[in-house]
Structures are given as C-alpha cells and as structure tokens.
C-alpha cells in the first residue's frame, strides 16, 4: 500500500495577489450583517454570492470571505466542502452528473462512469482543461426506470450504454431538452389551443415554464 502524503504548510494562495472579490461584492456581504446575531452567520449567503458571481470559490476568495466575517479560513473550507453546490475550482460549461446509486450500478453505471472518466480524462468533481465539461456523481437522478442514466446540465440521458458515451459527448446538443410534449400536456390557463412547445431555444425547464405563462 503506497502512502499518499500532502504538505499543508505550503500556502494555496499568493499573499501578494490582488483581491479577487470586488468592493461591491464585499459591501453586499457586509450589508447582511444586521440581519444576524453574528458575523459568522453570513457565511452561507456570502458563499452563494461568490459562487454566483465568480462561478466558483477559489482559495483566495475563501480567505477574503474569512477576513470579512472575522472567522478562520478553515471554517470557510469546512462549510464549502460540505455542500456540493459550491465549487472550489471553475465549473465546466456542461456539468455531467452520473448516478452512483443501486439501480444504475446494477445496470452497468459503473462502466459508464469509468468510460466517461477515460474519455474526458478527469476524475469526479473535476473539470476538463478546456472548461467544457465537469463530472460529478449524485446519489439518484430519479430515473431508475431508465437506468443507467446521466444528467448533462438539465437533460437526462436514459439507458446509457458504454458505447453510447462517445456519441453523447460529441453531440453539441447533449444538454438541450428537445423532447416533444405529449398531447396530455396541460395547456397554460387562458390558452384554449394546445401549443407546440417542441424545439424551444431554452434549455431550462424553469425558463420554459416562465415562457409559457
């Protein structure tokens, strides 16, 4: 058994680097202080702001958040690493989520995940160097009847076989929802005619619902 060793005395950030959080963002974080009893309580909202603003939370940003909230940076990484929502490195354009739960595993999900790792050249919770793909695993994608399945951004790929992986990755539209609505689809209130919603530009269910309101 080989030993994996890590030296934690080496800093992850350059002490002379310019601040990464804009003055406006810092001010926005500070503006939440009156809402809570302690400054520490602003940690989660602050992390959301930085994640939304930068797309991920780099080490430098963690240090800056810690300085604003007057807590130790280890408390910040403690919280960030608990939630998969927060990324400590840049998130790819398309996030591929593979299921690691029972149904998908029995139907060959492990082989699909290994093939994905091989073709993308990255491990779990990593991003390809060109920034196109990130790979994560989740406990269940609620698609057990179509196991094994993959989620790319918001599009669910069902019954994925190992030989399909290359084709799915090469497809530019692999994250776009393009399935036709069935006739049973409830038409929005006030519209008597059922509307064909196929081929919508949006890739988001939320945007789709908003558009049809």
């Amino acid at each position, binding site marked *: 058994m080989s030993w994996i060793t890590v030296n934690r005395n080496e*800093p992850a950030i350059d002490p002379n680097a310019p601040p990464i959080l804009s003055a406006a963002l810092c001010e926005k974080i500070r503006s939440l202080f009156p809402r809570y009893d302690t400054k520490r309580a602003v940690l989660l909202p602050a992390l959301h702001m930085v994640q939304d603003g930068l797309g991920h939370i780099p080490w430098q940003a963690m240090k800056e958040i810690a300085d604003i909230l007057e807590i130790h940076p*280890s408390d910040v990484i403690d919280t960030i690493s608990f939630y998969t929502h927060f990324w400590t490195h840049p998130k790819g354009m398309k996030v591929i989520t593979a299921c690691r739960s029972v149904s998908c595993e029995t139907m060959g999900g492990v082989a699909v995940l290994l093939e994905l790792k091989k073709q993308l050249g990255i491990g779990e919770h990593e991003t390809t160097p060109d920034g196109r793909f990130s790979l994560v695993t989740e406990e269940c994608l609620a698609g057990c009847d179509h196991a094994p399945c993959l989620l790319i951004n918001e599009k669910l790929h069902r019954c994925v076989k190992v030989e399909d992986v290359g084709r799915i990755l090469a497809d530019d539209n692999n994250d776009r929802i393009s399935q036709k609505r069935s006739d049973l689809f409830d038409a929005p209130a006030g519209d008597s005619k059922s509307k064909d919603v196929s081929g919508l530009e949006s890739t988001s269910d939320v945007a789709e619902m908003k558009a049809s309101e």
Partner: protein
Amino acid sequence: MAKIIIDGQEVECRDNIPVLQAAVDAGWDVPHYCYHPGLSIAASCRLCLMEMKMPHPQTKEMGWAPKLMPSCQTPAREGMEVRFATEKVQQNQKNCMEFFLLNHPLDCPVCDQAGECHLQDYSYKFGDPESRMVDQKLKNPKKDIGPNTLLYSDRCVMCTRCVRFTDEVSGTHELGLVNRGSRLEIDVFPGLPLDNPMQGNVVDICPVGCLLDKDFLFQRRVWELSTASSICPGCATGCAIRVDHADDKVYRLKPRYNPGINDWWMCDEGRYGFKYIEDSKRVTSPIVRRGLDATSPEWADIPEIVQFRFEQHVRENGGEKLAAVLSPFMSCEEGWLLIEFMRETAPECTLVMGPVPMEGDDQSFPVGATGDKVKFTILNEKCPNRRGVEMLLEAAGGNQCSFDEFVEKAGGGSFTAAWIVGGYPKEWVSKELNKATGKIDLLVVQDLLQNSLMTSAAFVFPACSWAEREGSFVNAGGQIQPFDWATNPPEGGRRDGQYLYEIAGYAGLYNGERVRKLMAAKIPAFKEIHEPPVRPVHAH
C-alpha cells in the same frame, strides 16, 4: 449529588454530569471516542449508547426504551436507571467498532499509537474479530499539518476532538472538517498550519494514531516507556505532567489531569522544553578546589569536606560574611536542606532569592478570552518554584536581601563565602555577578550547565534537571505539588537532594516525602500538599 442506577448498582454522582462520566468515574469501562470531559459534547461516535428507562408515552409506566441513548449526551438525574451490560448495547458496540475499522489501515506495527491506542483496546474488548468488508479500503492522505504535528487521516475515526480543541480551548480554529460522508477528513487551510502554543494537546486527545507528534515519531514503542508523575518546571503554572522515559532518557512529556490548575492540558513550551536534560554542557561530577589544585573526590567524602571548609571559614571570617543564593528551580525540600545547613553553620548568614526569569507576557487560552472564560494560562514567570523558595525564606527569617543587593554587596566585598544555586536551563550568569563573585573566597556553585562562575569556585556541584530529582514545587496559585524522579542523573552525578541531605547532616537516602515531613514539622505552611485525583485507567 444525584443517585442513578447503572446495571442495577446505585452510583452517586454530581447532578447533570453526563451519565457516561458518572459511569466511567464509578469504574465502568464504557467505550467512547468523541466524548472528552474538557470539550463540548458531539455525540457522534455512537459507541457509548446505553439503554435507559423512560415513561411509556400512554401508560406513563417506566420501562426500557426501545431506542439506545447516547450516554455522553444524557445528563444524570436523580433516580434514573440505565444499563450497559445488555446484548443490545454490546451489539451496538460491535457494529460501531466494525464501522470504525472499515477503512482503518492495518499498520499498527509502524504506528506510534500502538500500545496506547483506543482503537486497539476497544476492538479487542468490545469489537468483533470478523469484518464483513470485502471492498477496497478508502485511502486518505497522510498530511503534514504543522511544525510539530502530522495527521494520518487514514487512521482517523472522526471523533472531532481535535477540531473542538482548537475551537474551544486554544481558540485558534486551525482545524476543520473537510468534505462529507466517507470522504470526511480533518484538515487545515493550506498555508495556515496548526501552529499555536498549545497544539501538542491534539496529539494527546486523539484516541487513535491519527495525530502524531513529530518530536516523538518513531522514537520508541510506548510499551517500553516507564512513567513518572511529575510537575512541569517550565513556568509557575505548575502543570501536572507525566514523564515517559526509558533507559534513563526522557522521551516525552504528557499532561496529567489536574483540575483547577492545568485540567487536561499543557503547553508546547513545557512539552518540548525538556531537551536541555541532554545538553552537552551539563556538569556531571563534583569539583573541589584548594588553591590551584582541583580534584574530583568521591561523593561520600564531600559532606565532610564541605562542612569542614565552611566551619573553618566562619571561624576565621565570621558568620555574617556568608550568603546563600537559592534558585527558583530548586524544590522546596532541597531549599530547606540548604537553608538548614547554612543557618546551622552561621545563624547570621544572608539568604538570597536568586533571579526569577520572566519572559514577555502571560498567555491566556482560548485566545482573547478573559475572566471566567480562560481555560489555560502560560505564565511569563519561567520557573516552577519561586513561591516555594519565598515561603522557605519567610519561615527562615534572619538576614536576607534581594539578588541585586547581593550582587552589589558581594562586589563591595561584604561576602567572603557564598553558595550559589543555579539550575536554569538557559545562560543566566550576568557580567556583574561574574565580577562580584571574584571577591568571594569560598564559592560553591551548584548548577546544571557549565558557566563562568565555575572557573573560580571552590566547589562545583552538578545540579540535576527536575526529571532526575524529587521534591515539591509551589505554583503560582500556592499549591504545593510533589513530583517524582524519572531518570537517573548523568554518570558521575548525584541527586541534589541526596548530597544536600548529607551535607545538612542527615544520614541515609534522601526521600522527598520524608524530608517534606521533617520540613512541615518546622514550617506548618508545608503541611498541606496538593495531589491531583487519579483518573481510572480506562478514562481518556
């Protein structure tokens, strides 16, 4: 006080302490990892679960609750009934142990903790010999997390004691929990290592071999170490410690539970500050000079030579020309024996309190805490027994002066004979003192490390480090705390207590306790000694 029933036996304990604490104090070896009496309660290891009697929700009839309760998180209340010796509880312990050992590497042969590891002990005592794990173990990295500590996260059982220690006792917050679930690890923020004056304690409270002391790493197997109860000489706090030694070499110091003084902790300055014991500049044998002639006589002959030379000197020059400088590194017993000898030789001799080393300011922990919130203090008075020597001087009365006055008077030729005791772990002889002692004909220097006074001294006696002596120290709070010797003096040397005992006119072997009783008979202030309570061996 509350009376609770554990396994059918009545146990008396303080109200509202955790049932686990009451059980451990009363002799039950209840397995636990996350619970530590000095830290907040996490109730995360689930090893200490117990069965408890609770009222039935409808009938209100008392009966054993179907669910197991964490005994560390349940406060003891009058009349409550719990039990540990049941199949249900034991099955839970087995299951928990199997879980803790799932990813634990089988590296006990190279692990420093082996022999004092609670994973080994509990696995043997409460675990199941079989593991059902057939998959590959998860392998977490071994991390260098600071100047004195290594963190082998593959051995970790996630009790989070170390994280709570840095949050609650040292108040420095360096450690955190990174990731989640089976990937959970203890870690620091890269570049902000675990580096505070109390960080050695995380190694003590780690129940397994995850946190390791770089200083002790791979030095010695723990079952080869012998242990002596001692008191830390690093500062006036007077932490109760144990000295772990083998083959007359001190390997490490660990704190002993001492409520109100150091509780469960000690500082790194004390913990790693024992290296001067093996200093190459140690004085190891006595030297006696007459004119230019220097000899190293047998220890047995020394008392007579000293007594003769001092008596002769007093006859020729008078008793008021005699002085003794006592060091705050002496034990009370040694100080008392020296005062006995000096005052017997010349009742009018001058007694002097030696220099008291002070460094910087007091440091309180948690960092920034004041008043009641302070859990540990490192004092700036870097000697163990200033108060003890002061008590002796107060009881002795007669001619006394401060150290500065002594240097001044000696420089002016007021003293022709002096006994100067050192024992400081650092260089302490000032230029003024060196110059002043030139005018002293009969100079006795009793010191640990070689210094410039020794070149002109009539007698040089090797002083021993505290680990080689026995006696008692009086700490800043006025508690008289006895300590035992751990190792033997270097070859050719002898314990200070032994030669002072003989010089003071007593025969036989020096014994700290016996001398303390003789001393207490004359000075009642020394009657009451403070000894920390002994914790059961299974408490940790």
